[in-house]
Protein backbone atom coordinates (compact mmCIF):
# COMPACT_ATOMS: atom_id res chain seq x y z
CA UNK A 1 0.00 0.00 0.00
CA UNK A 2 1.26 3.43 -0.89
CA UNK A 3 1.06 6.24 1.61
CA UNK A 4 0.99 9.90 0.85
CA UNK A 5 4.09 11.67 2.08
CA UNK A 6 2.71 14.67 3.81
CA UNK A 7 4.72 15.56 6.87
CA UNK A 8 4.06 18.86 8.57
CA UNK A 9 6.99 18.15 10.97
CA UNK A 10 9.33 18.59 8.03
CA UNK A 11 8.24 22.19 7.66
CA UNK A 12 8.42 22.86 11.38
CA UNK A 13 11.94 21.41 11.35
CA UNK A 14 12.90 23.61 8.43
CA UNK A 15 11.77 26.72 10.27
CA UNK A 16 13.65 25.68 13.39
CA UNK A 17 16.89 24.98 11.52
CA UNK A 18 16.50 28.23 9.57
CA UNK A 19 16.13 30.16 12.82
CA UNK A 20 19.23 28.43 14.15
CA UNK A 21 21.28 28.95 10.99
CA UNK A 22 20.28 32.61 10.82
CA UNK A 23 21.29 33.19 14.44
CA UNK A 24 24.65 31.51 13.85
CA UNK A 25 25.23 33.54 10.67
CA UNK A 26 24.39 36.79 12.49
CA UNK A 27 26.78 35.87 15.30
CA UNK A 28 29.62 34.92 12.94
CA UNK A 29 29.15 38.09 10.90
CA UNK A 30 29.70 40.07 14.07
CA UNK A 31 32.71 38.00 15.07
CA UNK A 32 31.08 37.11 18.38
CA UNK A 33 31.61 33.87 20.30
CA UNK A 34 28.84 31.70 21.72
CA UNK A 35 29.91 32.86 25.17
CA UNK A 36 29.66 36.53 24.28
CA UNK A 37 26.18 36.26 22.77
CA UNK A 38 24.90 33.83 25.43
CA UNK A 39 26.06 36.06 28.27
CA UNK A 40 24.58 39.09 26.57
CA UNK A 41 21.30 37.22 26.23
CA UNK A 42 21.37 35.75 29.76
CA UNK A 43 21.10 32.23 28.36
CA UNK A 44 23.64 29.42 28.62
CA UNK A 45 26.16 28.61 25.91
CA UNK A 46 24.65 25.12 25.74
CA UNK A 47 21.13 26.46 25.14
CA UNK A 48 22.27 28.96 22.49
CA UNK A 49 24.31 26.27 20.72
CA UNK A 50 21.28 23.95 20.71
CA UNK A 51 19.09 26.70 19.26
CA UNK A 52 21.73 27.38 16.57
CA UNK A 53 21.70 23.67 15.65
CA UNK A 54 17.90 23.70 15.42
CA UNK A 55 17.60 21.30 18.37
CA UNK A 56 15.76 23.69 20.68
CA UNK A 57 12.77 25.86 19.90
CA UNK A 58 13.33 29.38 21.25
CA UNK A 59 10.33 31.27 22.63
CA UNK A 60 9.69 34.80 21.47
CA UNK A 61 11.14 36.03 24.78
CA UNK A 62 14.32 34.05 24.18
CA UNK A 63 14.58 35.36 20.60
CA UNK A 64 14.31 38.88 22.00
CA UNK A 65 17.10 38.12 24.46
CA UNK A 66 19.33 36.65 21.75
CA UNK A 67 18.67 39.68 19.54
CA UNK A 68 19.84 41.79 22.44
CA UNK A 69 22.95 39.59 22.83
CA UNK A 70 23.67 40.06 19.12
CA UNK A 71 22.87 43.78 19.30
CA UNK A 72 20.24 43.60 16.54
CA UNK A 73 16.58 44.54 16.60
CA UNK A 74 14.37 41.47 16.92
CA UNK A 75 12.43 42.77 13.90
CA UNK A 76 15.61 42.69 11.78
CA UNK A 77 16.27 39.17 12.97
CA UNK A 78 12.78 38.04 11.97
CA UNK A 79 13.14 39.65 8.53
CA UNK A 80 16.38 37.73 7.99
CA UNK A 81 14.77 34.49 9.10
CA UNK A 82 11.82 35.17 6.76
CA UNK A 83 14.07 35.88 3.78
CA UNK A 84 16.08 32.74 4.48
CA UNK A 85 12.84 30.74 4.44
CA UNK A 86 11.53 32.35 1.25
CA UNK A 87 14.00 31.90 -1.62
CA UNK A 88 12.27 34.36 -3.96
CA UNK A 89 12.77 38.03 -3.13
CA UNK A 90 9.74 39.65 -1.62
CA UNK A 91 8.29 42.01 -4.24
CA UNK A 92 6.52 45.00 -2.80
CA UNK A 93 2.83 45.12 -3.77
CA UNK A 94 3.12 48.48 -5.54
CA UNK A 95 5.90 47.19 -7.82
CA UNK A 96 3.98 44.11 -8.80
CA UNK A 97 0.91 46.23 -9.56
CA UNK A 98 2.95 48.61 -11.68
CA UNK A 99 4.33 45.71 -13.72
Amino acid at each position, binding site marked *: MKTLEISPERHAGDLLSTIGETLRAERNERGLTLKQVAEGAHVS*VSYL*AEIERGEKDPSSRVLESIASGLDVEVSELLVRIASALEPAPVVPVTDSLAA
Partner: protein
Amino acid sequence: MRFTLKQITPSDARAISRWRYEEPYSIYDGDPASVDSLLQPRFSYHSVYDERGDLTGYFCFGEDAQVGAGKRLGVYEVEPALDLGLGMRPDLTGKGLGEEFVRAGLRFALEVYSPPAFRLTVAAFNRRAIRVYERAGFETVETFGAPTLGAEKEWLLMRCGS
Protein backbone atom coordinates in the same frame (compact mmCIF):
# COMPACT_ATOMS: atom_id res chain seq x y z
CA MET B 1 44.31 23.83 47.40
CA ARG B 2 47.18 25.15 45.27
CA PHE B 3 46.11 26.18 41.78
CA THR B 4 48.37 26.50 38.73
CA LEU B 5 47.48 28.08 35.38
CA LYS B 6 48.73 26.85 32.02
CA GLN B 7 47.72 27.45 28.43
CA ILE B 8 44.56 25.50 27.65
CA THR B 9 44.82 22.21 25.73
CA PRO B 10 42.28 20.80 23.25
CA SER B 11 41.34 17.99 25.64
CA ASP B 12 40.78 20.48 28.49
CA ALA B 13 38.61 22.62 26.19
CA ARG B 14 36.53 19.57 25.29
CA ALA B 15 36.11 18.67 28.97
CA ILE B 16 35.15 22.24 29.95
CA SER B 17 32.60 22.41 27.12
CA ARG B 18 30.75 19.46 28.66
CA TRP B 19 30.52 20.79 32.23
CA ARG B 20 27.00 21.12 33.62
CA TYR B 21 26.10 23.27 36.64
CA GLU B 22 23.26 22.88 39.11
CA GLU B 23 20.50 25.49 39.15
CA PRO B 24 20.54 28.45 39.30
CA TYR B 25 23.97 28.23 37.65
CA SER B 26 23.00 26.23 34.53
CA ILE B 27 23.36 29.51 32.64
CA TYR B 28 27.10 28.69 32.72
CA ASP B 29 26.67 25.33 30.94
CA GLY B 30 28.99 24.98 27.97
CA ASP B 31 28.64 23.21 24.64
CA PRO B 32 31.11 21.35 22.39
CA ALA B 33 30.41 24.03 19.73
CA SER B 34 32.40 26.50 21.83
CA VAL B 35 35.62 24.43 21.86
CA ASP B 36 37.04 26.37 18.88
CA SER B 37 36.71 29.71 20.61
CA LEU B 38 38.20 28.31 23.85
CA LEU B 39 41.29 27.42 21.81
CA GLN B 40 41.59 30.76 19.99
CA PRO B 41 44.90 32.30 21.08
CA ARG B 42 43.47 35.85 21.10
CA PHE B 43 41.08 34.94 23.95
CA SER B 44 43.94 33.66 26.14
CA TYR B 45 42.10 30.75 27.72
CA HIS B 46 44.08 29.02 30.45
CA SER B 47 43.41 25.80 32.32
CA VAL B 48 43.69 25.71 36.10
CA TYR B 49 45.17 22.58 37.68
CA ASP B 50 45.42 21.39 41.26
CA GLU B 51 48.55 19.86 42.87
CA ARG B 52 47.74 16.49 41.33
CA GLY B 53 47.48 17.96 37.84
CA ASP B 54 43.69 17.58 37.67
CA LEU B 55 41.75 20.17 35.69
CA THR B 56 39.85 22.38 38.16
CA GLY B 57 38.68 25.27 35.99
CA TYR B 58 39.70 27.93 33.50
CA PHE B 59 40.41 31.61 33.06
CA CYS B 60 40.22 33.76 29.95
CA PHE B 61 41.85 37.18 29.69
CA GLY B 62 40.58 39.99 27.51
CA GLU B 63 37.82 40.21 24.94
CA ASP B 64 35.87 37.01 25.58
CA ALA B 65 35.32 38.17 29.17
CA GLN B 66 33.41 41.27 28.04
CA VAL B 67 29.62 41.38 27.67
CA GLY B 68 28.12 42.94 24.52
CA ALA B 69 25.73 45.22 26.38
CA GLY B 70 28.69 46.59 28.34
CA LYS B 71 30.68 47.22 25.15
CA ARG B 72 27.74 49.11 23.68
CA LEU B 73 27.49 51.28 26.80
CA GLY B 74 31.23 51.88 26.73
CA VAL B 75 31.82 50.56 30.28
CA TYR B 76 35.07 48.92 29.20
CA GLU B 77 36.51 52.16 27.86
CA VAL B 78 36.27 54.22 31.03
CA GLU B 79 39.55 52.95 32.47
CA PRO B 80 42.19 50.57 31.15
CA ALA B 81 42.04 47.15 32.80
CA LEU B 82 42.41 43.46 31.96
CA ASP B 83 39.08 41.63 31.79
CA LEU B 84 38.85 38.23 33.45
CA GLY B 85 36.45 35.44 32.70
CA LEU B 86 36.57 32.29 34.77
CA GLY B 87 34.82 29.11 35.72
CA MET B 88 35.40 26.29 38.21
CA ARG B 89 34.67 22.64 37.61
CA PRO B 90 31.06 22.16 38.76
CA ASP B 91 31.81 19.67 41.57
CA LEU B 92 34.33 22.10 43.13
CA THR B 93 31.94 25.07 43.35
CA GLY B 94 30.26 26.09 46.59
CA LYS B 95 33.09 24.62 48.72
CA GLY B 96 34.94 27.76 49.73
CA LEU B 97 37.68 27.27 47.13
CA GLY B 98 36.72 30.26 45.00
CA GLU B 99 38.84 32.95 46.63
CA GLU B 100 42.07 30.93 46.32
CA PHE B 101 41.12 30.06 42.74
CA VAL B 102 40.58 33.72 41.82
CA ARG B 103 43.79 34.80 43.59
CA ALA B 104 45.76 32.20 41.61
CA GLY B 105 44.38 33.68 38.39
CA LEU B 106 45.23 37.22 39.49
CA ARG B 107 48.81 36.23 40.43
CA PHE B 108 49.29 34.56 37.05
CA ALA B 109 47.80 37.47 35.08
CA LEU B 110 49.85 40.04 37.01
CA GLU B 111 53.04 38.20 36.12
CA VAL B 112 52.16 37.61 32.46
CA TYR B 113 50.27 40.77 31.49
CA SER B 114 51.14 43.35 34.22
CA PRO B 115 47.81 45.15 33.69
CA PRO B 116 47.03 48.52 35.32
CA ALA B 117 43.99 46.87 36.98
CA PHE B 118 41.74 43.82 36.79
CA ARG B 119 38.09 43.93 35.80
CA LEU B 120 35.30 41.40 35.51
CA THR B 121 31.65 41.32 34.55
CA VAL B 122 29.30 39.14 36.59
CA ALA B 123 25.56 38.51 36.33
CA ALA B 124 23.85 40.30 39.24
CA PHE B 125 21.95 37.15 40.28
CA ASN B 126 25.20 35.33 41.01
CA ARG B 127 25.62 36.45 44.63
CA ARG B 128 27.89 33.49 45.35
CA ALA B 129 30.46 34.58 42.75
CA ILE B 130 30.16 38.25 43.74
CA ARG B 131 31.03 37.38 47.37
CA VAL B 132 34.14 35.50 46.17
CA TYR B 133 35.26 38.42 43.99
CA GLU B 134 34.77 40.84 46.89
CA ARG B 135 36.90 38.65 49.16
CA ALA B 136 39.58 38.57 46.46
CA GLY B 137 39.66 42.40 46.43
CA PHE B 138 37.16 43.39 43.75
CA GLU B 139 34.75 46.27 44.17
CA THR B 140 31.61 46.98 42.19
CA VAL B 141 32.11 50.06 40.03
CA GLU B 142 28.97 49.94 37.92
CA THR B 143 25.71 48.11 37.38
CA PHE B 144 24.38 47.92 33.86
CA GLY B 145 21.70 46.13 31.91
CA ALA B 146 20.24 45.75 28.46
CA PRO B 147 17.01 47.78 28.20
CA THR B 148 15.16 44.99 26.38
CA LEU B 149 15.99 42.34 28.95
CA GLY B 150 14.32 43.84 32.02
CA ALA B 151 15.59 44.84 35.40
CA GLU B 152 16.21 41.35 36.79
CA LYS B 153 18.86 40.75 34.14
CA GLU B 154 21.73 42.99 35.01
CA TRP B 155 25.50 42.74 35.28
CA LEU B 156 27.94 44.16 37.77
CA LEU B 157 31.23 45.57 36.59
CA MET B 158 33.84 44.88 39.26
CA ARG B 159 37.36 46.21 39.50
CA CYS B 160 40.48 45.39 41.46
CA GLY B 161 43.74 47.34 41.47
CA SER B 162 46.81 45.32 40.53
